[in-house]
């Protein structure tokens, strides 16, 4: 099977959806002529023309607002807000306009809109280019949030997001763009559905985005310590597929949720709360691994320590289970 790079998966999904549906348009800062600052969208402008793919001013509020207005009048915009950190700027349009429209209008129209952004730390980008904005939008009814970890899911989830009639916040972790993997087997993957990416009987590790390959690496390390970890790739953060996690915990009786972001107000804590509420009888232990309650630091030593990588995940599991490293 041919290998698919994560960034190519993104490009191909947009390309194919523009081809498939004449109402899909794609715009953002530096996405057309330059092909995106992370080279995720090269060639789309040349192939589909200015009417379908275009560069915008550095005006995130106008971009999101215009995308909203276009979405309720017949277009299906896909926009790129370059870094997730910049999502603070278009917040009014996304939170007060796009997210509420379907409900408040009494279901006169929904808002088919996808907002893509590069997210996450580890790139030495510092505090204002390293955040994951999912938690800013976690509490907003009407929004969906996709958070793929694998190229196949990136492509299939983005296609689902573009075809979805509701606004979708689509997260792309910077440190996944160059990851290669198999192409998707299905054309789309449903939003809001998790995936067990490694089976195991001793503990469930649930995560999303870069946390998934980190959890898989930790699971390999833990295997040599005699701990058999199951890894759940959440793939979407809203709706959050607690059912898949509960089913996994019913087998493993332990749950660790790993989130790149602070514990306070995070999705990991929400998931843990739901699992405790619904599946306390299955739980022997459950806990969270997050970043510190500080902004992302710049210096490599500080940033590496800040992130809950494979070593930190494995160490946390060993400590909690009272197992020494092999």
């Amino acid at each position: 099977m041919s290998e698919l790079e994560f960034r190519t998966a993104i490009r191909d999904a947009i390309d194919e959806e523009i081809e498939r549906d004449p109402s899909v348009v794609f715009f953002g800062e530096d996405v057309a002529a330059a092909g995106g600052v992370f080279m995720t969208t090269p060639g789309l402008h040349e192939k589909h023309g200015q009417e379908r793919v275009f560069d915008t001013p550095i005006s995130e509020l106008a971009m999101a607002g215009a995308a909203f207005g276009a979405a309720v009048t017949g277009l299906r915009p896909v926009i790129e807000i370059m870094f997730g950190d910049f999502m603070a700027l278009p917040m009014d349009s996304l939170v007060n306009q796009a997210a509420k429209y379907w409900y408040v209008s009494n279901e006169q129209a929904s808002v088919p809109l996808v907002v893509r952004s590069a997210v996450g730390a580890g790139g030495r980008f510092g505090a204002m280019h390293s955040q994951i904005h999912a938690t800013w939008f976690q509490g907003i009814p009407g929004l969906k949030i996709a958070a793929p970890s694998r190229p196949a899911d990136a492509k299939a989830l983005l296609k689902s997001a573009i075809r979805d009639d509701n606004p979708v916040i689509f997260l792309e972790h910077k440190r996944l763009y160059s990851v290669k993997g198999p192409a998707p087997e299905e054309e789309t993957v449903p939003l809001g559905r998790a995936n067990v990416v490694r089976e195991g009987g001793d503990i469930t590790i649930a995560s999303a985005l870069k946390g998934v390959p980190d959890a898989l690496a930790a699971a390999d390390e833990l295997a040599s310590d005699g701990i058999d970890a199951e890894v759940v790739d959440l793939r979407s953060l809203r709706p959050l597929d607690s059912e898949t996690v509960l089913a996994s915990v019913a087998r493993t009786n332990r749950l660790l949720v790993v989130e790149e972001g602070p514990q306070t107000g995070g999705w990991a804590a929400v998931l843990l709360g739901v699992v405790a509420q619904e599946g306390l009888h299955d739980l022997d232990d459950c806990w969270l691994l997050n970043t510190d309650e500080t902004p992302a630091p710049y210096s490599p030593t500080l940033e590496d320590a800040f992130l809950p990588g494979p070593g930190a995940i494995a160490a946390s599991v060993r400590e909690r289970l009272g197992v020494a490293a092999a």
Partner: protein
Amino acid sequence: MARAETEPTGAAQERADAARERAGESPAEYLERYGRMRLIRRFEQEIQRLFLRGEVHGTTHLSAGQEAVPVGICSALEPSDYVAGTYRGHGHALAKGTDPEALAAEMLGRATGVCGGRAGSMNVVDLEHGLVGCFGIVGGSVAAATGAALSAQRQGGVAVAFFGDGATNQGYFHECLNWAQVFDLPVVYVCENNFYGEFTPMADVTAGGEIGIRATGYGMTSRVVDGNDLWAVREAALEAVGRARAGDGPTLLECQTYRHYGHSKSDPGKYRPPDEVESWLARDPLDLVRARLLELGVAEDELAGVESEIDERMDRAVEAALAAPYPDPQRDAGTEFKG
């Protein structure tokens, strides 16, 4: 401190007269528009009355005094054109064609409301009549119309944003004007300048003088319009909408007008000097249309006929809305997502 011009300048009067001649329209067409203005005025008076009776909840922002702007602008639009309004949006909705009974029922939180009682006064949506929405946050309508214009550019049609003077100090305004000019969007930005951003005189918190000239920085055509003169508003709208329809890009219209009530329910409007209020009340846009129509030869009983017809229509609308059921939380809880 700068204050609103309360008398039309000679130039504005001349423009209005010229517009009337150019448009070559019969007084009968203006009689219909006068009826629509009266409908908005009566609607606002009824909402005020029903609010005091406890039937309208939360807050409302009444547009009485500003009726010539939405009616004049919407008179230049097709039913399929898009409009985005503000939280002072009852007039925007009624001018675009929203049924007064459905709008009144929405204010009353009833199941028969245009949004089933989910929206209330500030967030009305009526897509069937091209009302993309009324937006509860200052500046939101500017972006919504800009986006609707992206669609209209591809599908045909024009989009209009109504917004107040206060919105012109928001990021939405500046980002969207630049955006619309860059992409030649078929959009008309209509600023209803009533000279107060909530309780604060606009002039106290705004640099650079009149709002219309802000378009100049973006290379956009703009005009300052006497917003209490229906003829002047309509003439400016025909020109701006025509430009948008021809593919010649956006226009900013600063329509100077005045609200008769305070900003919202909790505001008696005491920060406005009495002589200023008086001078604007003396230029009530409905009185101006009425006087002009009499001048043009419309009979008094014809005007009175339209007035009583509108009043009866409004009475029936309120009566029906008051009789309508409240939404049932068991049945009408709604869904988070479509599909």
